[in-house]
């Protein structure tokens, strides 16, 4: 699939419209213009709503530009909006998301790239079977696995505690369930199929002779990985990073189930802020909060351009 998307950059294939102004051209550009409006509309609405005051919103036109621009809603969404008696706004969720994101991205990519490398270059008996299971796993609805994972996290947490107390009787209980490390594990697990596929395909496309040459040169499993494969694979690591950053940032389900309120990621907190209301709904604050949450993936999207396209095409199976 990655290869297919590389083709997407290879230039249009369709017939070229002949003249600049022709009825065909007017239809094509007209349609595309309308389509672009449809896709841009929500972004536009988010922005203008977040810049209006509540009285203006109640009066008026959802599509109208703000008469009086105010940044109050942004400030409120970021640092004042309440869920319960915590009125710290989205900022807490933002930092939680960052703390979830950074280790999850690093660990999941590290593990998956080694997996992919082992599958591509160091096949062993059964490796393809595990890989097939892994890929099928990408399609299993999370709902099927959510509950048993709660148990696994609890038991491993207790196991680790038991282990720690072998050395230090006063060691405090180690918890995976509800903690950031638990969520990091969950993200690593569920990111694994697609990332492994991504890396496996990439490493398979690296000429086998390069790998052979390195072996003749006396490099082993890790030597080849770190010295040969890793330096060659920066683009695919960037693609994987984009994939994971957007995926993990946008996660809601795991965030709800495997964390607790203090560690809620931004998406969950956003939903709480918008859907838990004190008195009147403040649409402008809601939209500012929504935009703030969408900002990280949007920035990554606009900054990464074609790499993002490759990433999502590769990550498609993640669903």
């Amino acid at each position, binding site marked *: 699939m990655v290869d*297919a998307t590389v*083709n*997407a950059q290879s230039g*249009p*294939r*369709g017939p*070229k419209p002949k003249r600049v102004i022709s009825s065909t051209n007017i239809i094509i550009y007209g349609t*595309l213009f309308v389509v*672009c409006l449809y*896709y841009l*509309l*929500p972004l536009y*609405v988010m922005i203008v709503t977040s810049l209006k005051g509540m009285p203006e*919103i109640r009066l008026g*036109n*959802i*599509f109208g530009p703000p008469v009086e621009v105010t940044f109050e809603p942004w400030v409120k969404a970021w640092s004042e909006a309440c869920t319960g008696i915590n009125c710290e706004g989205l900022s807490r969720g933002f930092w939680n998301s960052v703390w979830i994101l950074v280790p999850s991205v690093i660990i999941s990519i590290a*593990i998956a790239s*080694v*997996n992919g490398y082992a599958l591509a270059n*160091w*096949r*062993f008996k059964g*490796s393809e079977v*595990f890989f097939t*299971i892994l890929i*099928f*796993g*990408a*399609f*299993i*609805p999370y*709902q*099927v*696995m*959510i*509950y*048993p994972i709660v148990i*696994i996290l609890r038991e491993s947490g207790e196991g680790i505690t038991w282990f720690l107390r072998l050395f230090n009787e006063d060691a405090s209980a180690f918890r995976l369930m509800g903690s950031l490390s638990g969520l990091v594990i969950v993200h*690593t*697990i569920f990111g694994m199929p697609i990332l*492994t596929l991504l890396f496996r395909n990439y490493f398979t496309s690296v000429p086998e002779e390069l790998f052979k040459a390195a072996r003749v040169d006396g490099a*082993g*499993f890790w030597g080849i990985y770190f010295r040969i494969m890793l330096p060659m694979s920066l683009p695919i690591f960037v693609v994987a990073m984009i994939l994971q950053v957007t995926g993990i940032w*946008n996660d*809601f389900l795991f965030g709800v*189930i495997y964390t607790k309120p203090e560690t809620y990621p931004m*998406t969950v907190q*956003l*939903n709480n802020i*918008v859907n838990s209301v004190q008195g009147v709904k403040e*649409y402008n604050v809601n939209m500012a909060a929504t935009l703030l*949450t969408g900002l990280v*993936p949007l920035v990554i*999207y606009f900054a990464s351009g074609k790499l*993002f396209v490759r990433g*999502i*095409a590769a990550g*498609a199976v993640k*669903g």
Partner: protein
Amino acid sequence: MAVTDTGQTGAGAKKPSPLFKNLTAKIAAIPMIMTALVVFIGCTLWTIYHSFTKSRLLPAPEKWVGLENYERLWSENRWIVSIENLAIYGACSLILSLTIGFILAALLDRKIRFENTIRTIILYPFALSFVVTGLVWQWILNPQLGLQNVVRSWGWETFTFDPINNADIVIYGILIAGIWQGSGFVMVLLLAGMRGIDEDVWKASRVEGIPAWKTYIFIVIPMMRPVFVTALVIISAGIIKVYDLVVAQTSGGPGIASEVPAKYVIEKMFTSQNLGLGFAASTMMLLSVLVVLIPWAYLEFGGKKNG
């Protein structure tokens, strides 16, 4: 042959045990093996087993009740509604996103200007979370202040479009949001497939004077079959998992009009404290995924072996 005798003492003379062959690779693959076996297989089997038990708040493997949970599941109106919603949402979003995606891809493939800009615009919603998507559309479709209100203020006083509160059309409101988010992605996939087609096909059809639309329908689409199948599988897998979008946009309301199976499972497991029923429902979800997946896997992998 004195060589042979001394040779036997060489370091490479002994065949290593097959267990230690590639040992580092095997150790490095432990996370993958654990995930595959413990999580994907183990957890799935665990859930399936417990769907036949009377587990309530806690798993109760000893209380075997056979198909009772499944009987209850299919007698529950909310589950039926969830399935119906999923069917409507699924069918519409498959057809619409493939159609829209294909048309857009075809338009973008006609050597137009600003191709990159337009593609960027169409694809950006895909970068957003379902929660964000759901909340934005909840606001746009707000009957008092959103789209309906604006159209009415333009003079069309009787205009009614309220897919947030009207139970009959609420699922279409979610569909609009879902299409908005996902169709750009389908477009990118199909565009990639389209670009994979040999340019000579176009030259040939032009030489023979076949109109462009006919070329698309009779030549290009059949040639893009593998891409369509991939897109189909991906969209389907995504549809079955749809959860956050509904939670954010409608919370399943009004009433139970926009409930979906994924949400049903979560709520039965955690809110209603009926794990067995939740497991039964999630097993049904798994089954529906397999219905899509197995024929695809057969075509994709089984076919290759024969060909």
